[in-house]
């Protein structure tokens, strides 16, 4: 009798346990963000590139120019509304001593359709936008063909990478950077690297 009782209890508790495990799994799913993508480049060095500056004629940047300092790479564009919201916060970060390099992601240009690109119109647009929000960038890398963006695993804007002084990519964040995400994700790593309190 007690044996049967035991068996009954087991048969009853197994579905119950499965049910609770399922609950935990689904509950976790409620708070996971499917848009939170991580580049396959984490822990690796910055991909090699050679791209022009957005604002200055005849100036080009490569991955070697970025060595020796801790910095953020912020992917943005004037077409991106979330970037408009994010820019004032990034400007604040710059004032707090964070070096931010812009990677300007041009979305409209397609070499299959457009023959030439009006860089002057874009520069005007950029200056206009940064006048309104403040300019958080040391400088902007202009990625017309989205080649560096592709190598970094960028799927849209805004996205932000944290790169250390040896050129290794440590963090990747999709979506806007704000006080909350900065405190939770970037600040600990950044403080550790810079050994300063922000």
């Amino acid at each position, binding site marked *: 009798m007690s044996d049967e009782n035991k068996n009954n209890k087991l*048969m009853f508790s197994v579905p119950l346990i499965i049910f609770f495990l399922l609950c935990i799994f689904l509950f976790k799913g409620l708070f996971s963000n*499917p*848009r939170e*993508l*991580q*580049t*396959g*480049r984490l822990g690796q060095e910055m991909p090699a590139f050679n791209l022009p500056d957005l604002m200055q004629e005849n100036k080009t940047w490569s991955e070697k120019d970025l060595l020796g300092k801790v910095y953020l790479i912020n992917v943005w564009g004037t077409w991106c509304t979330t970037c408009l919201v994010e820019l004032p916060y990034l400007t604040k970060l710059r004032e707090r001593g964070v070096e931010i390099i812009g990677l300007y992601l041009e*979305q409209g240009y*397609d070499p299959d359709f457009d023959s030439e690109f009006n860089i002057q119109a874009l520069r005007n647009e950029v200056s206009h936008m940064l006048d309104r929000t403040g300019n958080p960038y040391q400088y902007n890398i202009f990625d017309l063909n*989205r080649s560096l963006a*592709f*190598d*970094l*695993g*960028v*799927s*849209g804007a805004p996205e932000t990478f944290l790169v250390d002084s040896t050129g290794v990519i440590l963090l990747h964040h999709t979506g806007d950077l704000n006080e909350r995400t900065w405190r939770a994700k970037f600040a600990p790593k950044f403080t550790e690297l810079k050994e300063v309190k922000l």
Partner: protein
Amino acid sequence: MKYFLFVLLMGVSTVILAVEESHSFANMQQAQLFKELSLELRCPKCQNQNIADSNAVVAKDLRDKVIELVKLNKSKDFIVDYMIDRYGYFVHYKPPVTASTLVLWVVPVLFVLFGFGSVIFRQKKSSTEQKWSVKDEAQLTKLITQYQNNSVQVKQESGQ
């Protein structure tokens, strides 16, 4: 019948995927490889669409890159790894077996094993319990004679 068929057909969903672009590849193998890859690679921007199905800028960039690499005669594994290097495992619809994805393979198997196991276990248990013993046989004969006696008695009583 017509209406029945109509209703039945309403329950059937059809998926049609159209790829607008046509590309000139050197041979059929390359064209086939591009087709395969564009169905198997996942757009990082529009969740749950492959790059053939999506018109997002990044999906087009991925398609263009696949075309470029296919034309360079790169193998399928090379191209998939190339994309995973940049966009992570998310970009491929066939996730590899790793520690974190192992559960996807193990759980269904365990589930089936547990199900069959419990069915077999229960059957065995009930078959051993219902063994027909000498004692049962004796009880049965006793009950039958008792019933027969009773019915004879009832008949006799009603006959009077």
